[in-house]
Structure formats: C-alpha cells, structure tokens
C-alpha cells in the first residue's frame, strides 16, 4: 500500500502529482498485430516517456491502488482504484467496506467510462444563440456575480441531485450567503415514499434491513438485487441468506406486477394486479390472524373484510398461494417484509407501504430483521435526500416566473421530469440558468452557462451514504489520477469560489476545496475517534483507508404498530380507453439515465430480456397473442400525456394488464453512446402524485398500445430458442427437499 509521506505529497500538492504520474508509454496496451515476425518492432521509433520525479512506490508495470468512493449511485460503495503509470484502469471494491466488502456492481465499475468519456464537457460554455462559446473560468465567475447582483434570495434557486458530506455543507453555506432557501434536491428514482412510510412505522427513514438474518423474505416489488437502495450490500446479504440460518436456506417470495431482477431470483414469484400490493399485505395479515397470530384491536379492525376470497379476487394471487405463504411466514421466523418502488408508485403508494410495513410489525420482525441504523453525528453532512416532490414545487415556481437565477447540478430534469410537467418550457422562464455538468445533457443544453466538472475519479470529496450497513461511516473520495482535462473544476472548488464571492473573509483560509475538506475533517478529528493522533497521521490514515468508520449510536426503533389511518382504495377499475398500466422499470445499470453514455452499460444485456442498446415494450405473450403482436413489432404506446414508439418483446414475467418500458434510454443529448438509442418513458408519464408525500406516482400512468405496422429485429443476447434449454442439461434446478446444503463446503 501507500506510505504516508507519499500520500502527503499527493495530497498536499496536487500539481506535483502531474510530474510523477506522467505516462510511461503503454505499448503493452497497443495493438497486437496478428501473424508472426517482427512486424511491430520499430527500434528507435517509439518514445518511452519516463517520469521526471517518481515516488518510491511508483514502479512502471506495477499497479498502485487508491481507496476512494463510487459516485455512480448514492449507495456509497467504497472502491479501490487500480492505477498504472498514472492512469486509472479499473475500479474494484474496497474489502474493508461494510457496504460492499470488496464487491462491485457493473454500474460502479463503469465509473472509469464516465471519467474517460469522450463526450465530457471540457470548457466553460456561454450561450450565444444556439451555440455555446468557450469562455474562461474567470469570466464565468464574474458573469455569475453580475447576474446575482441585485437579485434577492427568493429569486435564486439551486436544483441538485442527492448531495451529502462537505459538498452539502458548502452548498448550504452558499445559498445562505445568497439569502436563498430554495434548495431543491431532486432524484427521479428515489425511495421517497418508503422513507416516509418507514418513519411512520419504525421511527426512522432508513432502518437497517437484515436480509441475511431472515428465514423468509417477502418483497413487494423491492428490487434489492438490482437497483433498490444499496444493491451490492443486499446482494451479499442475499448470498448469506441463501446459504441459510442454521442450515435452512432462506426463502424469497417476490410480489410484483413486472418481474425485476430480484423477482427472477425468487423461490416464488407472485404476479399481482398493479397497485393491489397493499390489499395483499392486509389479506396476509388477516389470514395470519385467522391462523392464530395475535393481532391488536385496530389492526384486526383494519384488516377486517380482507378475506382470502376477496383478496385473491382483487390481487389475482390464488388462495392456494396465499395459504402457503401465510403458513411459511408463520412457521419460519424471523422473516422480513420489504416494500419497494413497485408497490409505492401509486396515488395510494404511501398506504400500500404502510400496509406492507404493518406486516413486519405483525410478524414481529421489527428489532430482529429490521434494526435501527446508526447515523453520522454531524447533521449538516447527512445526505440531502432527493425526491420528485421537490421538482414539482420548483416546476410550479418556474412556471410562475419566480426565478432570475437557477443553478442545476447532478440531475437532468429536462430528461427525467414527467412529460405532463412541461418542465422544459417552464425552465425557459428562469432568467439565467447555470448548469454544472459532466456532459452536455438535455438540461445543460437549455442552460445559459455550462460549467464543466471534474469526474469523480479526479476530484476530492466526502460522502455520507443514506443506507448505513454497519455502524456509521463517512466515505472519502480522492483523485485516482491527474485531471484529464485542464479546464474542468471540482464542484467543491466551484462552490468555494462562489461562496468566496459573497463572504471572502470567512473562507480566506481555504485555498481550495481540498484545503477546506482537510481543515474541516481535522477540526472534528476528536469526534471521529482520532483525537489522540496528530493531524498528519490522521489525514494519511483517512486517505489510505478511504473510509472513516464511526461507532454506531445505539438508536432505538420507535415504530407505530397500529393501523390507524390505513385506508386502501379498492383495486383500480379498468380504464376502457387506456387499458394498460404502464410500468416504467428501473434497471440496475441505467436507472434514471444519467449514465447511459457509458458503453459498457449500453452493451450489458438486460438480465431478463437480454436486450442491448435499445428500449423495448414488455408485454405478456398471451396478451400479445390476443392482440396479434409478435416480437419486434413496433408499438405506439400512448398515454394521456404523450406517446412513444418502441419494439415489442414478449415477456412472461408481467401482468397481462400491464406493459413495461425501461427507463434510462431515449436521450436526445448526453453523448454519442446515448443519443438516439431507445425511447424515454418519462415523457409520457401523467402527473399523478402520491396523496400523502406528494411524490410522483411512477406507476399510475395508463396507456393504450397499437401496432404501427413495422417490425424490426430485436437486438438481444438470447438465442433463437428464446431462452429455453430444449431438454439439454444446462441450467439445472433442484428443490430444497432434494439437497443437503448443510453438508456443502
């Protein structure tokens, strides 16, 4: 690993780093010419660039590893970057991390393609008509100061993706210096309804879920192996869960209308009528009560009437399966019930989540498989959690022409706002729009000033994960290599410069964001449990490990086990005109589409359909047969808001009354690997919101479909057999009564 003096060198003088990170020539990675002979030997022609100065541990041909934090999603996995001759080559997991324990998902690994992406913005750009004109940073900063001059705090807004750590602190300070309270934290795909429901049920927004301690996991659309909350962490828990507690293999039952990656791994996948997840949960409680589980008075009252026949009729889950599930839950404890986005994306999403959480209370899982999580004792660093309600407020304000200056960072609302909001049109009403961006994405294209950001692999930062795995932790993000482009800046440095425009005196001690970060962490050194160590040692150790682990404060769960206020609507009636439920699916790698320009992700087949590089419409084969649709038929999918066209894919894992289109594709900008591939279902989403939290109800859009008379070849990885093994012994299965897992290695 790295010795401390060299870290100091690295850390203290970022510009020294340039010298010894000079590339040494990388002939090894050049083309291997086919054929024999000395065809590629060119004595005396190729240049080998040596280092000017090199730290002792820098040896050509030997990789150096730096710890940092993954920035591809908010889970906060700790990464270990492999660096050779000054170039970061590969991101691997940091084995010391409680979150990912040395493991990585594909999305995280593609972080290098974000860093080396050819479509990154490299210069500050100022709008001149339809074009962007390169300007200097000095001019850009002066322009911002000029535009803010004489503008009141109410007329300034900042739209950001989820932020935490010192960046959040600086952002808050900057807005305060402007006298503005208008920070909108927007994430298009966020567990916002769940946070509210958890707060009610358990007293905390994001408790710790111990999948590995559960004998049965009943998940209502929580795709914890794919995109839900902290998938790499849950994947490891899942592996332990499968190995079993006391040799008994964990059982996963997934309830949803469209099969997710997690659903595809379930022992029993139960398809439900869209939106009836809560009804099923109450039906299970009712049946548990009938089978002898004690229910409190108000719970018993709440579930009264949810008898098996009615529940089966409403949800489409057979009485037989219901009985088996109830028996299993009763017999094998503890269990764990999870509510995911599929259950929450309705106007009654909060009610669905409440009903599902109530099931945990009834089964006595709270305190066993659901535990209090620890939090970082610095409230100002705790993540500003994104949701869609924030966007709605901003959108209304923009429509009213309230803002003279608008900043956007780490979010792309022009792409992700539901079409019904008409966000793009409203955005035009803001006076001066500044986008801090990595790419010229749809939102940056609407901006008046675009400021290019450093990638996460060349920038400093701290990050506090929303979901804490074990104890609490602060993640350190540090540069893995020299900046790729001379004229990009780190978001922290930009905010520091901006805040200095307002309050130069307060920040005069900090030359740059690195200095600010180091200074701030040193002042809380004692609280971080390193009071006794000297500053340099503390700092070196922090950078070496990349994680500051804190003892978890022993919080108590204080949940509400009552069913007060629980009121579920009846199963939604059929819509004669728009007969299908649209399920915009969140895939593990593309999510809300911000990383679509990373070609590894475009070419990584969707696990369930194996489709690459394009969007598709999932429709149940029986329904398709009814409508005369075959694979590759281009379908027009129309909602009350708009319509899009995509190829049909016949998919058995979906409710016949629903169709599903994945999110993330359909960019009109962003870059060469994203633009023009697929369609964007955000565009046709209706403006329906969860009644309690005001969150966008992602699954409430109803659509109709029609063939447009064109058929294309679906580009996918599965063979002609459509994924049937055709009697060959390829992927084999056994049932639990046929195996003896406890005897295995």
């Amino acid at each position, binding site marked *: 690993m790295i010795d401390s003096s060299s870290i100091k060198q690295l850390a203290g003088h970022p510009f020294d780093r340039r010298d010894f990170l000079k590339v040494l020539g990388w002939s090894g990675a050049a083309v291997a010419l086919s054929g024999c002979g*000395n065809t590629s030997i060119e004595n005396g022609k190729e240049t080998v660039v040596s*280092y000017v100065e090199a730290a002792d541990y820098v040896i050509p*041909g030997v990789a150096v590893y730096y710890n940092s934090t993954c920035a591809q999603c908010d889970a906060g996995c700790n990464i270990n970057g492999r660096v050779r001759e000054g170039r970061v080559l590969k991101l691997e997991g940091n084995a010391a991390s409680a979150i990912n324990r040395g493991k990585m998902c594909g999305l995280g690994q593609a972080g290098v393609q974000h860093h080396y992406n050819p479509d990154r913005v490299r210069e500050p750009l100022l709008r001149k008509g339809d074009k962007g004109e390169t300007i200097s940073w000095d001019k850009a900063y002066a322009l911002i100061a000029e535009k803010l001059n004489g503008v009141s705090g109410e007329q300034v807004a900042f739209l950001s993706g989820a932020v935490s750590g010192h960046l959040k602190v600086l952002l808050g300070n900057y807005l305060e210096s402007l006298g503005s309270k208008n920070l909108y934290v927007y994430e298009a795909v966020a567990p916002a309804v769940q946070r509210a429901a958890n707060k009610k049920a358990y007293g905390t927004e994001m408790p710790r879920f111990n999948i590995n301690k559960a004998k049965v996991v009943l998940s209502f659309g929580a795709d914890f192996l794919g995109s839900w909350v902290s998938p790499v962490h849950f994947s490891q828990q899942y592996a332990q869960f499968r190995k079993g507690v006391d040799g008994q293999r964990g059982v996963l039952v997934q309830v949803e209308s469209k099969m997710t990656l997690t659903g595809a791994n379930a022992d029993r996948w139960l398809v439900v009528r869209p939106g009836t997840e809560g009804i099923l949960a109450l039906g299970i409680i009712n049946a548990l009560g009938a089978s002898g589980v004690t229910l409190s008075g108000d719970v018993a009252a709440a579930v009264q009437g949810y008898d098996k026949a009615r529940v089966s009729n409403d949800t489409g889950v057979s009485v037989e399966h219901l009985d088996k599930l109830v028996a299993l839950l009763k017999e094998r404890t503890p269990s764990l019930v999870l509510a995911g986005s599929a259950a929450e994306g309705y106007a009654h999403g909060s009610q669905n989540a409440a009903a599902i959480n109530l099931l945990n209370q009834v089964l006595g899982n709270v305190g066993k498989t659901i535990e209090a999580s620890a939090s970082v004792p610095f409230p100002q660093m705790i993540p500003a959690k994104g949701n869609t309600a924030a966007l709605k407020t901003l959108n209304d304000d923009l429509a009213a022409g309230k803002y003279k200056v608008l900043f956007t960072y780490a979010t792309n609302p022009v792409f992700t706002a539901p079409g019904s909001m008409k966000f793009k049109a409203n955005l035009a009403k803001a006076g001066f729009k500044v986008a801090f961006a990595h790419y010229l994405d749809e939102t940056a294209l609407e901006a008046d000033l675009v400021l290019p950001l450093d990638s996460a692999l060349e920038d400093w930062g701290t990050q506090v994960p929303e979901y804490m795995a074990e104890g609490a932790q602060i993640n350190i993000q540090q540069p893995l290599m020299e900046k790729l482009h001379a004229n990009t800046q780190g978001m922290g440095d930009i905010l520091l410069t901006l805040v200095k425009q307002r309050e130069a005196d307060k920040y005069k001690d900090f030359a740059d964001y690195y200095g600010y970060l180091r200074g701030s962490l040193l002042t809380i050194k004692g609280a971080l449990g390193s009071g006794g160590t000297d500053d340099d040692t503390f700092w070196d150790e922090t950078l070496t490990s990349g994680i500051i682990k804190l003892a978890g404060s022993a919080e108590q769960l204080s949940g509400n086990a009552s069913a007060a206020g629980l009121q579920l609507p009846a199963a939604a009636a059929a819509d004669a005109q728009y007969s299908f439920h649209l399920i915009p699916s969140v895939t593990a790698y593309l999510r809300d589409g911000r990383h679509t320009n990373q070609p590894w992700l475009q070419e990584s087949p969707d696990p369930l359909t194996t489709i690459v590089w394009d969007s598709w419409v999932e429709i149940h084969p029986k329904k398709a047969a009814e409508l005369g649709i075959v694979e590759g038929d281009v379908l027009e999918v129309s909602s009350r808001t708009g319509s899009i066209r995509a190829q049909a894919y016949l998919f058995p894992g979906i409710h016949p009354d629903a169709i599903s289109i994945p999110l993330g594709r359909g960019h009109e900008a962003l870059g060469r690997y994203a633009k023009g591939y697929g369609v964007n279902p955000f565009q046709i989403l209706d403006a329906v919101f969860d009644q309690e939290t005001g969150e966008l109800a992602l699954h409430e859009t109803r659509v109709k479909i029609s063939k447009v008379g064109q058929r294309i070849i679906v580009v996918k990885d599965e063979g002609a057999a459509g994924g049937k093994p055709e009697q060959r012994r390829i992927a084999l299965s056994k049932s639990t009564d046929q195996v003896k897992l406890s005897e295995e290695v």
Partner: protein
Amino acid sequence: MHRFLRLSFMLMGLLVASGSYAADTQKPTLTTEDDLGPQVTQPIEFPHYRHAGLKNPDDPTNSDPSKGGMEIDCQYCHTYARRSAVAGIPPLQKCIGCHQNIESVRNKPRIVELFKYWDAKKAIPWKKVHDLPDFVRFNHERHIKRFVEQQNRPTQEACGYCHGDVKSMTVARRSKSLAMGWCASCHEKNHPVTAEGGTPIGNQAYWYKFQKPVVASSDGVVKAQGPNDCWHCHK
C-alpha cells in the same frame, strides 16, 4: 460416424496442402547469433561507457575517475528491472540526484541539456531501443531474480545476455535479435535449477520444455527449460 471421419481427413489433407506456410514455420529458427540493431539517436547522447564502463580498461588498478568509466551497477539506475516485468527508464530525478553534486561536468553540453529538462520539469523523450512486439511480454524481474539474486551472477553479465555489452556503448544499441527463436535458443540450453538458489516447485520437470519431457541428466539435476507454454509470453 465413419463418413464424418473421412470427410474430416479430406479436409485435413486440404489443409496440409494450403497450410504449407504454417507447416514451414512450425518452429522459430533457433539462433544465438548476434544481430545488431540500428543506431538510435537519443535526445541526449547518454554515455553508458562513462557510467558503467571499467574504471580504466587498460589498467584495472588505475582508478582515475577522469579516465575510463565508473563501474556503476546497472541496477543503480535501472532499479525498476528487478521489481517489475518492465524495466522502464530511470526518472530524470535519478540523473539529477548525482549530477547536481558534480560541479566538474556541470557545463558540459549534455549535462546542460539535462538540466534544461529538469528546470522545465519536462520528461526526456527517450527513444525505445529494445522494442518487442506488443504481444510479447518479457519479465525482467524473473530473470534478474534467477541470475543475479539466486545464482549470484554479475549484473552486467546477466543483463548482457539480452542487452549486450552496454558498458562499452554510448547510447545503447540493440545487439541481440530478441526474436522468439533467439529467446528459445537460450531456454533450450540446460539450466540447472535445483542447484543452489534454485526454486523447484512440485514435479515440474516435464513442463519446463516446449514439447517433450527431458530425461533427467546423469547427475540427477533436473533441467529447467524456460517457459513451457505460449501463454507465458503471449497473452
């Protein structure tokens, strides 16, 4: 089944006819011949003979540093070679480390040039002299471990197997062919590995041969014969 076999033999015959090129080049030509590479012009004409050469070639007892070389060990500057598969080029800092204290040559043209690079913090664009095809991966570390560390051979001799008599050169010039047959010629010589410093592992004898097992020689010493499959160097 029978018919299938016949068909495949016919195909084979076809291949023998059309594949004669492959048949001819079945084995690289084994050669130990020296093969002088082109003269390479470097940004600074680095005098290897001055650094690594004998102190006084004519009179080994004369140690006047103004004549002859300084007998600096190859590994003093080329430190990476023993620690990595690739040898790399010493960092500029290494040159300066000594030369900032050698006032006597400070104004010589090459040294002035050297300091120009240093002052500008610019890397010297050295030209590659020993260039292997990009699909060939030679491991310096392994060879130095074996010859220098385990068998205690002089560094200059060990490096010289492939790099020639660099101590007599100004800028280095390739003097061995470095083609596969040339590598193999050395690896097919019998190098005793169970002698002192050797590292026999398992029952490797067979695999240390390109094709067939070697019979252990009469003195009972197992002969190692270098890499045993293509994937050692080509991957």
